[in-house]
């Protein structure tokens, strides 16, 4: 899901415009679920969760009655050292964790990731989060839910439910990292 090579078997399921519309809806869902923007903190999971969290924060800040800085709502939560597969993949370099100045204690934290799949990343994120503080509520927002959960985890806000076969790959490309905006499904080789 992380390579930038679009092979022939790839089929676009969300265009750049689709992603924008989906994020706008998810942003309003987050505000609605929270009954406002009070205490909201959006934490993106590297790498592509972070730009998504930034985009959501920009929309949420824009909807506020009094102007606020979107950056004060966003952070990045690295989960590398909390993964359960460290012994089985190549050594991963951790990314920085950056929390907003207000911290996360007593806040409503919305974890943001690009694709929800096995649920193991979110399990790791919940563990990582508890080492940084104690949020009042933790929610989960994802751009794409592709199914095939291996843990009892579900998302509160889903951009698009995407039925997939386990052998297929979902690739998310975001302007900030990949230079383009699209979500593709790639058939198995």
């Amino acid at each position, binding site marked *: 899901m992380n390579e930038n090579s679009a092979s022939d078997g790839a089929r676009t399921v969300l265009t750049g415009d689709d992603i924008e519309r989906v994020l706008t809806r998810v942003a309003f869902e987050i505000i609605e679920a929270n009954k406002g923007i009070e205490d909201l903190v959006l934490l993106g999971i590297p790498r592509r969760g972070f730009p998504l969290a930034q985009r959501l924060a920009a929309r949420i800040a824009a909807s506020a009655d009094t102007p606020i800085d979107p950056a004060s709502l966003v952070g990045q939560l690295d989960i590398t050292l909390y993964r359960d597969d*460290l012994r089985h993949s190549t*050594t991963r370099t951790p990314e920085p964790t950056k929390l907003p100045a207000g911290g996360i204690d007593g806040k409503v934290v919305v974890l943001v990731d690009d694709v929800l799949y096995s649920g193991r990343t979110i399990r790791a994120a919940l563990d990582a989060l508890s*080492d940084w503080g104690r949020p009042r509520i933790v929610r989960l927002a994802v751009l794409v839910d592709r199914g095939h959960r291996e843990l009892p985890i579900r998302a509160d806000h889903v951009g698009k439910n995407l039925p997939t076969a386990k052998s297929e790959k979902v690739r998310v490309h975001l302007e900030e990292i990949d230079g383009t905006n699209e979500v593709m499904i790639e058939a198995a080789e």
Partner: protein
Amino acid sequence: MKHLLSTADLSREEAVKILDIAGEMREAGTRVVKKLPALRGRTVVNLFFEDSTRTRISFEAAAKRLSADVINFSAKGSSVSKGESLKDTAQTLLAIGADAVVIRHPDSGAPARLAATDWIDLPIINAGDGTHEHPTQALLDAFTLRRQLALRDGVSATGLGLDGLKVAIVGDILHSRVARSNLWLLNTLGASVTMVAPPTLLPVGAESWPCTISYDLDQVIAEGVDALMMLRVQGERMRAAYFPNPREYSRYWGLDDARLGTLDAAGAETLIMHPGPMNRGLEISSAAADSPRSTVLDQVTNGVAVRMASLYMLLSGDLI
């Protein structure tokens, strides 16, 4: 990367990766909850055949911060004093269930022997062997330099090397494994190294090393240098007279108050480093050791982060 035996084995890419990982480990060390679960359930054995304070404690802290279990072994008071061989000691550790071995040994090459033989099939980290190498010390020195310069320049240290940096390593080069490890690593990372020492404390063959050799500390300071790495005079390894007396050593090769004054007067940004333990008043004066230029305590803090990164590198990823 299977073992960490020598900095000469590290590619630039690998070295920068260890430093980058150490950067994140250092950040984790500033949290209220310092522990990370990355090595939960693994056992690290500290096998120390030679005295050590900071290296052993640093490795112990590093392993514990990553949630590994630690078994400390020191030769004193163990079966080694009954004549047990390195092979038997190592195989005993394997039978106990160790996942990685951190070894310090007075004989150069002991860690390489453990790694090369089929006695045990575990990742080996060299924590100092004789007068050969001390790779994690060199990594923490490089990390400290890189971080200090990035802070000074207001940039992120991640991904950077030490290109164009001028580092002088001063003192007892002959007995120093720290000097050797630093020499290889600093070269790999793009820094240029000058070794400054009395001729008696330079090893035979030093002229073939990738560095400049100088016998004049004042001249090296006058020419400008980004960091002065002062080495401990290793009295315990000296079986002959290498210099007439401590006062003469201090006068010619030590970073004394006069030389510190020269640095300050020139407005130089030179950092003062020392791997510890320091002989205050011999190779470094108290004023120099405690000056704002000194990175001595920063080096200790960074040592834990670098050792966490080394353990993480060796104990994660495809090993089997």
